[in-house]
């Protein structure tokens, strides 16, 4: 059963992008390797999801060099936090309604 009332943000509503957002919510910043390891996705797949989130301005990526190696620090933006907050609220509302319907 899918909800009609709680519009879930389609940018966040994907396994990889939601996982990225939740991991970033719990961290100050994370790098590409960390996200890849935790979510268990390929480089290309992760890059494309990160790009989508960046285009929506939900995350920001800061590129730098450490010991001549490229490093990307990824973090949530304020807009991303608000969107995720809204997403989880809607999801909670939906799940609450589903459990109420089951009890009836």
């Amino acid at each position: 059963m899918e909800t009609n009332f709680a519009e879930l943000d389609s940018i966040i509503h994907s396994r990889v992008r939601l996982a990225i957002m939740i991991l970033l919510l719990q961290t100050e910043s994370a790098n590409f390797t960390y996200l890849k390891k935790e979510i268990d996705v390929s480089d290309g797949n992760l890059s494309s999801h990160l790009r989508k989130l960046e285009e929506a301005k939900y995350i920001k990526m800061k590129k730098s060099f450490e010991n001549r190696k490229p490093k990307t620090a990824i973090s949530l933006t304020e807009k991303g936090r608000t969107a995720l907050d809204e997403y989880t609220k809607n999801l909670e509302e939906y799940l609450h309604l589903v459990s109420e319907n089951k009890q009836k």
Partner: protein
Amino acid sequence: MDQITNEQALEVIKDMIERRKMKHNQTGFYHLLWGILISCAIVAMYVLVGSGLDHLIVYSWAIFVVGGAVASFVYAKRTYEKQGSSKDLDLGLSSIWIGTMIAMFFVAFIFPILNAYKWYVIYTMVCLLMGIANISTGILIKQKMSLFNGILWWIGSILFLIIRNELVFMGVFVLLLVVNNIIPGFHLYNLARKQNGN
């Protein structure tokens, strides 16, 4: 396919939160480090008192406390580099333990030099500080064991104001260290190893 149902979304959220929780167990390092360092400081203190070199006690404390603070700082930095992420909780835990050690430096080194109190009061103060660090850690990582350890440290701080027999004094302190730091430290460390599949 990357499309998910709302129920699957909830599972993803739970899974990602669980993954981060596992990383909390790194606190075992701080328990172990400080348990071992303070044990060394106690042994040094005992040897110095026995050799009539009481005036050097504060210096031995200073060496161990400063060494521990540096080791904690390096560990926190390396953990970030290894994990590839930092979070408020990691920062909070590192701050608590490094802050506690800086306070210990004052309590066990600066204040005795200024003749603020007699040497045995160091134990009471150290116990109070260890209690604060353990209780704060316990609340942050939701570990009852750490809370219990913190309370034991505070009980110890009162005992050290009452006990005057040197051997009993040492015995109680060593017991507190083993129960409050060494055992929980190994427990947390092993738990983290298992969860990380090492």
